[in-house]
């Protein structure tokens, strides 16, 4: 049965952001035939716009569905999202203003651009670019899952060819305004999206505990096994190292994703980036509170309510949040909340497709296919690639089983972290050799993929260190191998023939 009130509110809000997406082309007008104008908004976003843009970019619809869903299903372990968001901002503060500065100085649009200039090694830059594209694709596809779940929760049949139609419409809208307005569109929509998300989350954390009789009652309703991490068995660090390495590894990986870099490079100064490192944790607080919504869903008992049986069957635990909203809120507010989630999918999906398009165009098309291309050709290429990427994500979600998209997203984290030595260490030191970094990257990439496959695509691999079992997030373990290989080989290769003269950057570019 279709929930008409919710659906009408949903469609109205969706229409509003579509309109905003198109008029965004005229905002802070720039020449959209230039890649840095279309793909970075002309590097003109100040503190507040950057705050909304990066916030809308990092805290995606999928996060809003999946983190509470994991709390709902697995309990305390899912709360690693909180220490993860605690650690990302000190990293942002220290490291990324340097990237902003050098990128501004040399006109870099992607992290692979920087690596190309710093190490003068086009194959290393190609590896960085391909890793970014590969890691982002499943991420875009997962955003669609967020839209699918809320559409299903409003009673729209999401199976079959006709059921796919609403999702196709949403993505055609997304593709059209990204094509015409570039990064300005998600930046402007992010403001509306975040207001809706904040309203929804604040309503949930006030109304639901009132309904349950306070936070104490809510936590009392949680089974003890879900309330805390399980104490590790003898001879193992168990859930403790799982929790800590998941948080640390995810934090190190986050700002290496192309869409994060796009958000950072589009800001108007390194100072804007630093200010945002202090201001963005407001989103983390929201994410932490939202994680607790998963517990609220347990306490309210949505799983045993007969009206939600079909939903849980179709979307498993991802249905927990929508079910809670349906159970607690009036229909019109359900429409607002669901619109917030769906629009929350559009913003990061738009930024991700722009970021991957920038990467493909700059680091593959211009570098390897058509080095003589004009600036107009370059930005035209990026616009077309952004369409192809979105179409690919859509096909991905229709053709490939959902579980497979999850595996790929997990592997995406393992892969993207392998770019850390070239990108982050590269910002600080030129002691590393470009070829050594490439071999380190390949070692980490292969080892990480093998580890993930050998534990059936769980995120954590049990390392055995001096007789103790240390379950460790695969991304972090494979990164260590990558760094060691890159460092040792750099010593050898630099002794034979140093490639340091290929560095086009100088120390003052980084300040």
């Amino acid at each position, binding site marked *: 049965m279709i929930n008409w009130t919710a659906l009408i509110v949903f469609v109205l809000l969706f229409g509003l952001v579509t309109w905003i997406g198109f008029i965004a082309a005229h905002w802070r007008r720039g020449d959209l035939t230039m890649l840095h104008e279309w793909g970075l908004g002309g590097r003109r976003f100040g503190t507040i716009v950057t705050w909304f843009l990066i916030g809308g970019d990092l805290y995606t619809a999928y996060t809003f569905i999946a983190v509470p869903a994991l709390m709902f299903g697995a309990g305390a372990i899912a709360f690693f999202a909180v*220490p993860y968001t605690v650690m990302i901002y000190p990293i942002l503060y220290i490291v990324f203003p340097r990237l902003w500065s050098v990128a501004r100085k040399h006109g870099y649009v992607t992290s692979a651009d920087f690596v190309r200039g710093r190490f003068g090694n086009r194959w290393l830059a190609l590896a960085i670019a391909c890793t970014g594209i590969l890691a982002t694709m499943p991420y875009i596809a997962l955003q669609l899952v967020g839209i699918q779940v809320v559409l299903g929760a409003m009673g729209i049949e999401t199976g079959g060819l006709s059921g796919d139609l609403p999702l196709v419409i949403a993505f055609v809208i997304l593709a059209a305004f990204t094509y015409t307005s570039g990064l300005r569109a998600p930046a402007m929509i992010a403001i509306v999206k975040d207001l809706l998300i904040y309203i929804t989350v604040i309503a949930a954390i006030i109304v639901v505990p009132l309904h349950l009789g306070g936070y104490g009652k809510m936590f009392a309703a949680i089974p003890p096994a879900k309330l805390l991490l399980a104490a590790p068995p003898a001879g193992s660090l168990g859930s403790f190292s799982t929790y800590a390495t998941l948080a640390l590894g995810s934090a190190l990986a986050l700002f290496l994703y192309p869409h994060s870099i796009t958000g950072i490079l589009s800001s108007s100064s390194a100072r804007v980036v630093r200010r945002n490192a202090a201001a963005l944790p407001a989103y983390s607080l929201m994410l932490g509170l939202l994680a607790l919504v998963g517990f609220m869903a347990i306490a309210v008992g949505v799983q045993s309510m007969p009206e939600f049986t079909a939903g849980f069957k179709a979307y498993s635990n991802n249905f927990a949040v929508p079910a809670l909203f349906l159970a607690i809120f009036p229909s019109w507010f359900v429409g607002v909340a669901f619109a917030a989630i769906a629009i929350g999918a559009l913003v990061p999906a738009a930024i991700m497709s722009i970021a991957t398009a920038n990467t493909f165009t700059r680091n593959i098309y211009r570098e390897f296919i058509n080095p003589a291309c004009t600036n107009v050709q370059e930005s035209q290429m990026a616009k077309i690639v952004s369409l192809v990427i979105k179409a690919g994500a859509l096909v991905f979600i229709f053709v490939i089983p959902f579980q497979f998209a999850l595996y790929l997203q997990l592997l995406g984290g393992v892969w993207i972290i392998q770019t850390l030595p070239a990108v982050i260490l590269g910002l600080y030191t030129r002691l590393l050799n470009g070829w050594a970094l490439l071999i380190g990257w390949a070692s980490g990439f292969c080892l990480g993929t093998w580890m993930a496959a050998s534990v059936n695509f769980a995120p954590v691999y049990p390392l055995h260190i001096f007789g103790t079992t240390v379950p460790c997030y695969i991304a972090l373990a494979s990164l260590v191998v990558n760094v060691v290989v890159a460092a040792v080989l750099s010593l050898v290769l630099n002794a034979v023939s140093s490639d340091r003269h290929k560095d086009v950057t100088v120390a003052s570019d980084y300040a």
Partner: protein
Amino acid sequence: MSARPDEHLPARPVAWARLLLLIPFVAVLWVPFYNRIEPTWSGIPFFYWYQLLWIILSAAIIAVVYRLEHRAGHGA
């Protein structure tokens, strides 16, 4: 291009202040310390309110470091 003339001046890194940024890492990576229910805070187990509190504390630390590095006379 930018409305503020000082916008592109670099921060002057203050090394000891930057060390403060390590504190949040220690606080949240030391899992056995906070994997407990007591003391609860208005019904919320320690595990949850401790970590949520660190979101606010780490933001405050970053704000302090930012202030120190952008003081008047330091390019601010």
